[in-house]
């Protein structure tokens, strides 16, 4: 039986500014900020106070509702500031890095010879657990639930995404160690998918079920792959892990050190020379974006992640915990004369209503952040289905989230989805509805009501 996944529904958004395959070492960041908002649903409980010294890989806070899940510092240094928002909610833990990095030593773990519980405890204690996400709900995995399968997408089809084949080069040993360890944590299979014509180091690993994916975005989304391979049913859990994070897990198992280093792509039409950087989780984006990048004080938006699901960060902001991409595109905060009725050649559309992107499927576009219209009620139907490959009714599930009918949300497939699965429908939405927010709010409601 062929394990290949081929999808037809979707949309490739081709943007200008794909990262060139050269890697530089980013300027060392002086400050690192962990943002609890990166970990959805986590209420942080601090282990250290302001002014404390931490080692790289040493836990800084844990999840209040899941105390076993520890979050570790990416570097050694001093906690200089706990940033708080209203009601003293913690929004950032700022660490000033030491010149000489000291790592917490967790010791090597021979994954082949230890049992699942040891691996689990080890991952939890070392902060590596935070890389494991679960569905339902798209949150950090609950340690007490055993997944029916683990999914790893080695192919990122999102606009301007980092080429995972490129960034994973030479990491076979780490990847293998991580896969072997994770494989012990599930009764089911470890599904790994790679692009159809890829040379991914993931393809050669043992202990995996390999899938080759092809088709337009979102074929690389792990949600699409889960839906096609082994959809989540009520009462089941699956785990998803980004391949770059496998490298960190693998290195920890092999060396005993939590090395927060990862390769990050800098891309987007505002970037002079799009390329790759070696940097660390939570480092300042300013260390990468200005040198041969964007103009100081330019009218650009810096996004940690891709243009569909990433988070906007300020120029003095920090790389997201899970991001392996910084995208910078021009802000579109300008008016356009008769923008609603004149023929459009320089924007992407999946209709042909005097929009002509269907004529030039291979053209790359320089899109801005403009809404291209105003927020409206849902009106058009049938257009979401064209870009939504999951076996779920997108508009119906969005509406069920809006009117908060838990039974209907569950029946329509909320256990299977994550906000990013609705990024494309949000992109093409004529009514400019915030689909990902709607889904996130729906998932949060389910966590709260069903758990």
């Amino acid at each position, binding site marked *: 039986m062929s394990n290949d996944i081929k999808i037809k529904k979707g949309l490739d958004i081709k943007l200008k500014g794909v990262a060139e395959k050269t890697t530089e070492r980013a300027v060392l960041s002086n400050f690192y900020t962990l943002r609890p908002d990166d970990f959805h649903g986590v209420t942080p409980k601090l282990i250290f106070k302001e002014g404390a010294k931490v080692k790289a890989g040493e836990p800084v806070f844990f999840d209040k509702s899941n105390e076993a899940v520890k979050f570790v510092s990416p570097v050694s240094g001093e906690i200089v500031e706990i940033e708080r928002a209203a009601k003293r909610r913690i929004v950032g833990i700022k660490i000033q890095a030491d010149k000489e990095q000291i790592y917490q030593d967790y010791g090597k773990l021979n994954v082949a010879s230890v049992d699942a519980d040891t691996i689990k405890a080890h991952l939890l204690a070392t902060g590596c657990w935070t890389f494991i996400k679960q569905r339902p709900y798209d949150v950090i995995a609950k340690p007490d639930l055993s997944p029916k399968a683990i999914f790893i997408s080695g192919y990122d089809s999102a606009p301007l995404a980092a080429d995972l084949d490129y960034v994973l080069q030479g990491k076979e040993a780490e990847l293998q160690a991580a896969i072997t360890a994770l494989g012990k944590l599930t009764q089911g299979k470890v599904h790994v998918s790679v692009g159809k014509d890829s040379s991914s180091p993931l393809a050669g690993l043992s202990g995996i079920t390999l899938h080759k994916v092809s088709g337009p975005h979102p074929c690389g989304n792990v949600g699409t792959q889960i839906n096609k391979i082994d959809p989540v049913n009520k009462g089941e859990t699956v785990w998803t892990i980004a391949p770059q994070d496998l490298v960190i897990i693998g290195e920890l198992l092999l060396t005993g050190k939590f090395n927060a280093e990862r390769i990050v792509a800098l891309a987007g039409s505002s970037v002079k020379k799009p390329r790759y950087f070696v940097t660390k989780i939570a480092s300042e984006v300013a260390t990468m974006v200005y040198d041969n990048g964007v103009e100081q004080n330019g009218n650009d938006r810096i996004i940690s992640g891709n243009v569909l699901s990433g988070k906007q960060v300020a120029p003095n902001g920090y790389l997201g915990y899970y991001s392996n991409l910084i995208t910078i595109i021009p802000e579109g905060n300008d008016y356009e004369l*008769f923008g*609603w009725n004149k023929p459009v050649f320089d924007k992407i559309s999946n209709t042909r209503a005097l929009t002509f992107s269907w004529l030039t499927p291979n053209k790359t576009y320089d899109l801005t952040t403009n809404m*291209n219209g105003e927020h409206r009620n849902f009106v058009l139907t049938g257009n979401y289905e064209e870009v939504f490959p999951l076996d779920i009714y997108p508009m119906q599930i969005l509406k069920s989230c809006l009117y908060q009918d838990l039974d209907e949300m569950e029946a329509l497939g909320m256990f299977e989805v994550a906000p990013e699965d609705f990024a494309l429908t949000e992109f093409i939405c004529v009514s400019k509805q915030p689909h990902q927010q709607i889904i996130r709010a729906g998932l949060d409601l389910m966590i709260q009501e069903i758990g």
Partner: protein
Amino acid sequence: MGLKQNLHNLKEKYKGTKMAPAFNALHTFLYTPNDTAHGGTHIKSADDLKRTMNTVIMALIPCLIFGMFNAGYQHYLAAGEIQAVTGGFFSGEFWTLQNFILGFWKILPLVIISYGVGLGIEFLFAVIKGHEVEEGYLVTGMLVPLIVPIDIPWWMLIVAVAFGVVIGKEVFGGTGMNILNPALTIRAFLFFAYPTWMSGDKVWVQGAVERTKEIANGSTADAISGETILGSLAQSHHVDYSVMDMFYGFIPGSVGETSTLLILLGGLFLIFTKIGSWRIMLSAVLGALVMGYIFNVVVDAGWITETSKFYGLMSTEFWHHLIIGGMAFGIVYMATDPVTGSQTNKGKWIYGFLIGFISIMIRVFNPAYPEGVMLAILLMNVFAPTIDHYVVQVNVKKRLKRGKLKTA
């Protein structure tokens, strides 16, 4: 630059006031707003609701212009002042300035009333309720003058539009929330409130009603017949329009519904632009053909004789139903309304098919009002959520079954 900046300053000035929606509605017609995406995708596709609605209006404009020429043509033809067109669609006898001028001055007020009253109410509601003025009425406002008889008194139209916009749409929460197609709600209101102006053999040709009154008052002028083909057929009268006349639209009827050719082109344009649903259009055509064919078979089998009051319409060749009356117009422009129609792709097949099927059924069985498409669409508007429910349940059941198989 100057205009853009000035408008921007005005927008900032009105922000948060009651006037903001009204000002924004006008502003956004000139300029797409400077809003940027936040909290979701950072880029957005080029389409918005204005562009979508504008596409439908573009597909309607040919019908409107044709309607203007046809209004004049039908008037002068019925009055005996000109001869019937013999050439094809582009015949110079039809596209005359004389025809256009008469139609233009009769139809322009209808368009102005429709937009004036409808948008006026939309603005009012937007200001009171503090939401933006929505674009749905742009299409409704264009549809309304195209689906009424040309001589409709203005006050009736004003009352009907007000009713349709308020009861048909605003009470539900505006565009996207309504259950019934607003344009058809307006037409249905007219039909049930003022049936003498919406049916019969006078209202469809400009001047026919007036002439009848004159004759009643002792004028010796010849009467003008204003009967539609459907009206004739319903009374088993002889119809002397050729098939091509019907297809081109050189026949009496509501202002914009007559030219099947232009409606067909409009429909193809909507399908090409992906704004109109080809599923609904195709299945509605199929539904109409099937029902028409069943009636033909019934007649051929000899169950219905010429003495039956149903004979005229039942014996009409089944595919002729598509080119007479408002069938084509209803299918292309009204049944495809995404808000009131079926929302799932499978549901659209069922929904469209039933519209076509029921339209012809009503047309044949209701001799008092031989135009069924309006009622069929309104009926199916009501049933669309039910159809969708059952379509979605298939997906839901599949999911449940999958879960059970796993645990079993």
